[in-house]
C-alpha cells in the first residue's frame, strides 16, 4: 500500500509505514511496531486500523488480531487521554506501589482498566516498567514518573490536568 492509496493514517505516519515494511527481510516484521504506532495516533486498534495494517503487512486480519492480543500495550478499546500506569511489581511494592495505586483510584475515582467520565484519565495496574531503582514508579502514556509519594503523584496528575 502506498501513500496515494486511501489510508486512515496521517500522511506522515502512512509514509513511515510505507518505509517500515521495506526495512526488514520480511514485511511481517513491521507488524508489532506498526500496531503500536497506529494505536498512538488513532487511540486504539479499531477494526479499520486492523484492516489497513493487515493489508500493509500482507497478512490476514485474523493474524493481526492473533498477534495484538498477545501484547499488553496493544488494545482494541480507547483509554483516557492520559493513561496512568502504576507499577505494583516487587520493587515498587516494597516502596509503596500498592498504596500509590489505591491513592490513584481514589483521586481519579476509577479502578483498574477504567476511564474517567471526561475521558481525560484512565488507570491501569501494570507489571514491571524498568524503574526498580527509582520506585515507586508510574508511566503516564510513555512518560516515566519516579520516586513517587501520594503527594507528588497528586502533582503529576494536576500537571496533566492543567495541560488540557
Amino acid at each position, binding site marked *: 500500500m502506498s501513500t496515494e492509496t486511501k489510508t486512515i493514517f496521517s500522511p506522515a505516519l502512512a509514509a513511515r509505514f510505507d518505509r517500515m515494511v521495506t526495512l526488514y527481510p520480511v514485511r*511481517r516484521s513491521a507488524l508489532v511496531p506498526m500496531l503500536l504506532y497506529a494505536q498512538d495516533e488513532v487511540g486504539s486498534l479499531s477494526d479499520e486500523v486492523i484492516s489497513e495494517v493487515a493489508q500493509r503487512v500482507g497478512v490476514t486480519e485474523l493474524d493481526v488480531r492473533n498477534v495484538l492480543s498477545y501484547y499488553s500495550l496493544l488494545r482494541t478499546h480507547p483509554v483516557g487521554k492520559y493513561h496512568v500506569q502504576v507499577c505494583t511489581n516487587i*520493587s515498587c511494592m516494597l516502596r509503596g506501589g500498592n498504596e500509590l495505586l489505591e491513592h490513584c483510584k481514589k483521586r481519579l475515582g476509577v479502578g483498574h482498566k477504567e476511564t474517567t467520565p471526561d475521558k481525560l484519565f484512565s488507570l491501569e495496574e501494570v507489571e514491571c516498567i524498568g524503574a526498580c531503582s527509582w520506585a515507586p514508579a508510574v508511566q503516564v502514556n510513555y512518560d516515566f514518573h519516579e520516586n513517587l509519594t501520594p503527594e507528588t503523584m497528586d502533582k503529576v496528575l494536576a500537571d496533566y490536568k492543567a495541560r488540557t
Partner: protein
Amino acid sequence: MAYLVSHPDEVKLLSFRFGQGATNIDKYLELDGYTAARKAIAMGPEAIIAEMKASNLRGRGGAGFPTGLKWSFVPKQSAKPKYILVNGDESEPGTCKDRLIFEHDPHSVIEGVIIAGLSIGAKMGFIYLRGEYRYLLKIMEKAIDDAYAKGFLGKNIFGSGIDFEVISHTGAGAYEVGEESALMESLEGKRGIPRIRPPFPAVVGLYGGPTVINNAETLATVPHIFRIGGAEYAKIGSERNGGTRLFCLSGNVAKAGVYELPMGYNLKKMIYEVGGGIPNGRSLKAVVPGGSSTPVLLPSEIDIGMDFDQVGKAGSMLGSGGVVVLDDSNCIVEFALRTIKFYQHESCGWCIPCREGTDWLKKTLTRFHAGGGVAKDIDNIRYLAQNMLGRTFCPLGDAAAMPTIAFVNKFRQEFEDHLEGRPCPYAKHPEAALAHA
C-alpha cells in the same frame, strides 16, 4: 530520566560515558567512541572471538553464558543470512540497567552490534527495545541515523569494504519476549511463543538464519573489551567472571540505584556500604539477588561474591543483576504472591505446566494470604512448583517455580503463621494483592 548515582567502589568502565552527553555522536567519538569497531575490523573474525573468550565476559541477560563461546557456535558458512539481535526487552522485575545504557550511551550498543556482526559475518543487526521504552527508542533511532551519516553503518563501514545495517525495533509489552526464541518470533511479527531447541539460534535463528542474540548490556560491554583488551577486562572481575556489571539495587535500601561494580563484589557490602544499608531503623529480612526469578537469600547467606558461580553455589542465580532488598516489615507470602502474579500474567500459555502451574500457584497463594490457607497447601505449593521445573519450552516456567520453592523452603514458618484464618502477621493489606486475582 533515570537518575545517576555514584560510589567510590564502582569501576566505571561500561558506565564511564554516562552523564557526559555521549548520545551526541561527536561527544561519543571524543570519548574514545568507535575506536573498538575500527580495531575489530583490523583484527578479523577469529581474533575478535579469541579476544572475547579471553575477556571471560558472560551474558548479562541472566544465564551467564560465555559470550565469546556463543559467537563461536555460529557456522562460518551459511546459505542464509546471519543476524545479530540485541535483547533490550528488559522486563525482569528488579532490573533497570539497560535503560541507563540506552539513555546515556546508545552508540556503545551500536558499536557492540557491529563487532558482533564482524565476528560471525552478519550483515544486519536488530536492536529490540521493550515498548514501554519509547523515549529510549527515539534516542536509539537518532544514534543509528547519526552512525549512518558518519559512514559507520550502511555500505562500506569505516571504509572497510564491509556492509552492515542496523535497525531499531519496538516491542509492545511482553516479558516473555525477553526469552531469546520468543524474541525472534516477536521480531518476525508474531506472538512471542518460544521455539523448541535444538536447533539453537546460532544455527537456525531469525528468518531461519544463524543468529547471535545478546543482552543490551553484554553488547554495550563489548567495545570496552576491545578498548582495554580482553585479558585486562578479565582481570577486573573474579575467576571465570570477567569485568564489571551494572547492579540494580532496589527495595528497602537507603541508596537505591544502578551501580557498576566488579564481578564477584560482595553482596553484603553491596547492600550495606554501596546501598547504605536498610533505612528506617529496620533490619534485613531477605534478598532476591538477580531479578524476581532468582531464589531468595537469607541474611545469613549474603556474605558471597556476586558472580555467576558464587551465587550459584549459594543456591540462587546472579540473573539479570537486579538486587531486591526486603526489610523485616515485609510479608514473604505477599511477596511470593506478587512474584507469581507477575509470572501468571506473563505466561503465554503455550506450555501446560507453566500456564496451569502459575495459575494454580497464584490462586493458592491468594487464598493463603487472605487467610484461607490450609496446612497441606504449603506442600502443595512446593509440589506444584517442583512439577513445573524443566518442563517448558522456555525458562518462564522455571522463573516462576524457582523463587516459589525457595520462599516456601526458607520461610515455612511465615506460611504457617497465615494458617487457620489468621490475618497476615505483617498486616499487609491483602486487598491490593487480591484485587485482580
